[in-house]
């Protein structure tokens, strides 16, 4: 009887986890210790992790992991206080306890070393851009190639003027800190200068209240610069709604009721892109679209007459305005792209031909 029981216990007893070690988690804000161990070779249902402060008595449970894991992050350790850890293998019967680890204390770090490559790239790219912006400001002649679709802008505004119909400008649906919105506002400024000159009505519906404010000021300024402050009307630029499809419904309504001769769909767009572009195509407008939302580009390409793809959108504001600062930035971006191209080619050569661990260096 007793021997049978002992035999059963021996069957149930499992080898405890071994090699428990604890270290401060690197590159974090403190309050975390990483515990690692070697799993028990026997079948277990999971592990329980216990910890004891230096000089303390009690072992507290700090968490559980699944049966195939050999790593646990103890989050919530007081910084600067040393603890040691034990790992308990949980089974159907008696748990098996490991020996204690060495002492470890968590502490916060001031710099995340994982981001060193990001920091280096930031400086290189910033150098390229600022260098060419400075060149441009000093009056260096900077070239920018023709961008298909932008020549259509003048033509499209002229067409609206001839037909006596308005121009609709949708500055995208995103907020002001979105680069596409900034580029769109710059292009809006150029478009507004031309509509002011020709006296073409302009309609600018907005989805973001701040973008609305900025767009309104920009249009007003353009009308003043074009010498037509009288032609600017308070009602040209307005806010609609921040609900994506409520906005789309209203813009669709404007497209079909006001029948603009030209629609500009420029900025950041989501699923409503084709709802707007296809309604515009139905109403017979010439459509010029531009976005850096890669997932929406296919729809603009199919439904619009001209589409500025990705970076072309940023280049467009430089191309239209001929602002030296913008041209300089474009050139800086080109050099940065050349650097990326070089890194891809050289990195692949080094990795394949010489087995250099390029990926780990990045």
């Amino acid at each position, binding site marked *: 009887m007793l021997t049978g029981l002992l035999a059963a216990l021996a069957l149930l007893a499992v080898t405890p986890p071994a090699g428990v070690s604890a270290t401060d988690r690197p590159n974090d804000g403190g309050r975390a210790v990483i515990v690692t161990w070697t799993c028990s070779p026997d079948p277990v249902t999971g592990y329980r992790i216990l910890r004891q402060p230096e000089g303390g008595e009690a072992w507290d449970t700090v968490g559980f992991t699944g049966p195939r894991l050999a790593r646990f992050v103890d989050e919530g350790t007081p910084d600067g206080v040393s603890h040691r850890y034990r790992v308990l293998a949980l089974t159907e019967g008696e748990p098996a306890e490991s020996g204690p680890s060495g002492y470890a204390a968590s502490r916060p770090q001031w710099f995340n070393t994982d981001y060193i490559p990001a920091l280096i790239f930031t400086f290189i790219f910033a150098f390229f851009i600022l260098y060419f912006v400075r060149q441009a400001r000093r009056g260096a002649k900077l070239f920018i190639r023709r961008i298909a679709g932008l020549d259509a802008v003048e033509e499209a505004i002229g067409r609206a003027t001839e037909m006596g119909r308005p121009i609709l400008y949708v500055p995208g649906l995103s907020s002001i800190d979105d680069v596409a919105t900034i580029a769109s506002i710059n292009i809006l400024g150029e478009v507004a200068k031309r509509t002011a000159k020709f006296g073409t009505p302009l309609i600018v519906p907005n989805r973001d209240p701040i973008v609305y404010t900025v767009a309104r000021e920009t249009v007003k300024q353009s009308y003043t610069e074009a010498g037509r402050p009288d032609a600017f009307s308070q009602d040209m630029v307005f806010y609609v709604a921040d609900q994506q499809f409520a906005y789309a419904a209203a813009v669709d309504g404007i497209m079909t009721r006001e029948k603009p001769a030209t629609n500009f769909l420029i900025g950041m767009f989501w699923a*409503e892109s*084709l709802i707007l572009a296809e309604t515009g195509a139905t109403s017979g407008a010439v459509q010029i679209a531009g976005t850096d939302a890669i997932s929406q580009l296919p729809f603009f390409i199919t439904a619009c007459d001209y589409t500025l793809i990705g970076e072309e959108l940023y280049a467009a504001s430089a191309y239209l305005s001929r*602002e030296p600062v913008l041209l300089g930035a474009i050139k800086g971006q080109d050099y940065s792209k050349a650097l990326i191209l070089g890194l891809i080619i050289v990195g692949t050569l080094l990795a394949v031909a010489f087995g250099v661990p390029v990926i780990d260096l990045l």
Partner: protein
Amino acid sequence: MKRQLPLLIVLVVGIFASVAFFIPHPIVRSVDEVFRNDVLRIIAAFSLVLGVGSILRHHFIKIKRKAEHWPFSYITLVALFVSAVIGLFGGIDPSRPGILPTQVGGFSFHIQTLFSNMMVPLAATMFALLAFFMASAAYRAFRARNFEATLLLVAAFILMLGAVPLTRIIIPPLPDFAEWILAVPNTAAKRGIQFGVSLGMFATSLKILLGIERGWLGGGGS
């Protein structure tokens, strides 16, 4: 003052936000969190005032001028006013009612009821218009006019054929080829565009921070 001070704020806040990315220390992170959770949220909430002010004025002007379809402006104004009153005073959680009763007999007019029975169907139906627009855009644009248009057409066509169950029986390798197009050339194109877009983002953010890009102040780059 009118221009320099806002530019200075952008510079200071912007440098903090970019540097905070590299510093995991809780002193920096807690300030960063206050920024993201409290400051930006509260400021954004106030910005709605600009929007609501604009839309009210837009429709009041329409009514005053008796612009085309002006009676519809009343619908927007009334709907805005009624739903705002119900929402503000009737509470947003059905379990915690506000001072305004939101139920008469078995009929509820709580803001969440309005949300699920008016906003959701309206938004979902606007979204569903895409099913039709995709078809008409495809019919109109997918013509083998030139080489580029043909590529667009063929790739779209293969993907669509691949999704029809019958294809698996008629042309067995087609669905796998469709997946290959999605996984290989599509990935390459998107990644290539993404590099340029990211650099553009970086450049524009940098220009905003340093006050080189001032379009947001309203009134061109000057």
